[in-house]
């Protein structure tokens, strides 16, 4: 009885300690009144008001959606483009956990966290777009399985993939909280989660394209083909990796203080490697696009405004950045790679919007143009994601090295041991006294 009481007290004090730790971690780190914070605060607070209006009075009050254009940028940009950008997670986990390319290990965590948050926020933004979001549980539980629906497949895969990504980065959460035993269990799940995650990604990256297969007579023939799913899948590879490069170049400035030595040293090498993969897949993608174009026999459309727009996308945003990547890798030019990644990302936005919004109902006399409130709410989602990302990166070992207890012994042998400088040593001794 006594022992039970002791255990109870221990549990109580432990949970108290955890609660206090958690509360202290909730507080923001660093100065509050930075330009980023001010902009984010304005965008999010106005965005919240707009979201309330949207739910109170219907989609028509904040969007330009119509009977002709049922899907706008909330689907075309937030979901379809956002998920393509999040493709880096499955490509990198494939490279590191399946092919064991250890070189890229240091960027896996940040990419997976990014991917996870992208799914939570951008796929979560789908709830804003749903007219009857309270029924979103219907395809998940209950007897309303629309098994022949691509949307059903994509919805399930989003959900399962979010779980897989959470498992993939959960060891970082355990390290943050200092849960050693749970860490062990979670780490052992990583490979299974990675394999499951890659499989799901293959299917839903292409599934997003398959959503548009039945819009056969509505999408301009230059963009519609039965190969949309394959094109979406292949382009998600370089979209995701370009995002890793692009985002990496920003986070290296913003989170300089959180970076591990290893990440610093290897970063250029990693970027060059990723750039090479991007160049390769982009030429494969270009080749596929050409094949699809020839296969579709759409020469007559080429000499029309839509044809020029098509060429802008293919030449300006696939061939050009692909060429820049190749050139940059050859000359080991890191800044050129960053430029190429930026153009590639713009090209992905262009491609996804072309299929889902711009070339959709290309014949309509009055085409959909997003309302400023739609754009504002999209920005709200983006900024909310960035703030949560910053919160996580500043607390958990995402960019920084995991604590010593969490590292494998073998890995410890390989890394250069951190030798404190003289002054630091003194501080250390003072503080222990």
């Amino acid at each position, binding site marked *: 009885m006594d022992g039970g009481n002791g255990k109870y007290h221990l549990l109580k004090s432990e949970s108290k300690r955890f609660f206090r730790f958690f509360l202290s971690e909730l507080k923001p780190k660093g100065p509050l009144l930075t330009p980023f914070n001010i902009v984010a605060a304005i965008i999010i607070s106005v965005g919240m008001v707009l979201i309330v209006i949207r739910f109170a*009075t219907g989609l028509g009050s904040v969007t330009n959606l119509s*009977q002709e254009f049922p899907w706008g940028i909330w689907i075309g940009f937030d979901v379809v483009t956002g998920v393509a950008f999040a493709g880096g997670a499955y490509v990198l986990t494939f490279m590191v956990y399946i092919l064991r390319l250890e070189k890229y290990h240091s960027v896996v965590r940040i990419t997976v966290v990014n991917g996870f948050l992208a799914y939570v926020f951008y796929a979560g933004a789908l709830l804003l777009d749903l*007219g009857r979001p309270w029924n979103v549980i219907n*395809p998940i539980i209950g007897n*309303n399985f629309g*098994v*022949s629906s691509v*949307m059903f497949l994509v919805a399930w895969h989003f959900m399962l993939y979010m779980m897989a990504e959470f498992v993939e980065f959960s060891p970082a959460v355990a390290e943050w909280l200092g849960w050693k035993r749970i860490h062990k269990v979670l780490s052992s799940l990583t490979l299974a989660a990675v*394999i499951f995650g890659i499989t799901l990604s293959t299917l839903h990256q*292409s599934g997003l394209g398959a959503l548009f297969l039945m819009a056969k007579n509505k999408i301009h023939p230059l963009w519609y083909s039965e190969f949309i799913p394959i094109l979406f899948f292949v382009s998600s590879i370089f979209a995701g990796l370009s995002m890793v490069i692009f985002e990496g170049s920003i986070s290296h400035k913003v989170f300089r203080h959180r970076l591990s030595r290893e990440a610093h040293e290897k970063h250029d090498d990693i970027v060059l490697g990723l750039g090479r993969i991007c160049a390769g897949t982009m030429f494969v993608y270009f080749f596929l696009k050409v094949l699809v174009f020839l296969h579709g026999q759409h020469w007559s459309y080429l000499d029309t405004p839509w044809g020029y727009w098509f060429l802008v996308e293919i030449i300006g945003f696939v061939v050009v950045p692909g060429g820049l990547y190749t050139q940059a890798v050859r000359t080991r030019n890191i800044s050129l790679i960053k430029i190429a990644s930026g153009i590639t990302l713009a090209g992905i936005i262009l491609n996804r919007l072309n299929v889902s919004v711009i070339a959709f109902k290309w014949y309509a006399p009055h085409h959909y143009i997003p309302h400023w409130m739609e754009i504002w709410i999209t920005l709200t989602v983006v900024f909310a994601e960035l703030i949560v990302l910053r919160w996580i990166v500043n607390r958990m070992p995402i960019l920084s090295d995991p604590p010593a207890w969490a590292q494998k012994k073998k890995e410890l042998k390989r890394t250069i041991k951190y030798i404190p400088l003289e002054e630091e040593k003194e501080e250390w001794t003072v503080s222990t006294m």
Partner: protein
Amino acid sequence: MERRDFIKTLGVMGGTVLSGRKLHAEQKAKADDKEFVGILVDTTRCVGCQACSEACAEAHGLPEPDLDEEITMQRKTSTTQWTVIRGDEDKEIYVKTQCMHCNQPACASACPTQAMYKTPEGPVIWREDKCMGCRFCMISCPFDIPKFEYDSPIPKIQKCIMCWDRLQEGEEPACTETCPEEAIIFGKRRNLLEEARSRIYNNPDDYVHYIYGENEAGGTGYIYLSAIPFEELGFRTDIDKKAYPELTTEFLYSVPVILTLWPAFLLALNKATKPDEENEESED
């Protein structure tokens, strides 16, 4: 019935996302053993009185249609009007437009919650308690029929349901019952096709020799006869003759294949790339 549902649910839960195979097979089977009903529209008989629109509004509690509104070729159904007459008042040609009630509807196969539902009798209906408002049915429908209430916080999808509720009670649809010119007739789809063919055969000079809806989108519940080419009546003539759900079957078929092959392949790759020293270690 319940047992079948149970088995169906089990099957779905097992594979999470199997494929469309089952549902398509089921729909085809239904088409074979139970005949779909349909409606034949003979546009040469329509005088544009819009009695059908009025009857429709009354039968479904929709606002009374404004009969003075000009009839144009661009007229479309809306959230408050499930059926409208489009046409040209000068040339005196009129066409009743509404949901086509496809044999294998794109909307129903697009719907992730089975809210859009092809009833075994033939009408395609929308079920309020299931719909989550994703509007994928609107993207997929080749005829742009489902209409969404953008100005409501509790929006519904609005479209013709071929008076499915009235059919249950043994009545015929409100519009066909009302039509004073017998321009629209209700019946088994097969019989209506025969009727349409015989009208063309007996009056070859009065009709274009084509039945719109016989093969469009794999065949529709509504079929049309016309005296002038269908594109001049505002019909889309570039609609596939194949059933629209077939556009996604190839993709959906590949899902179970990838879902089972990928993990095995990835695991094998993972084992194959294991460095020798690690292999030895694990053996020790």
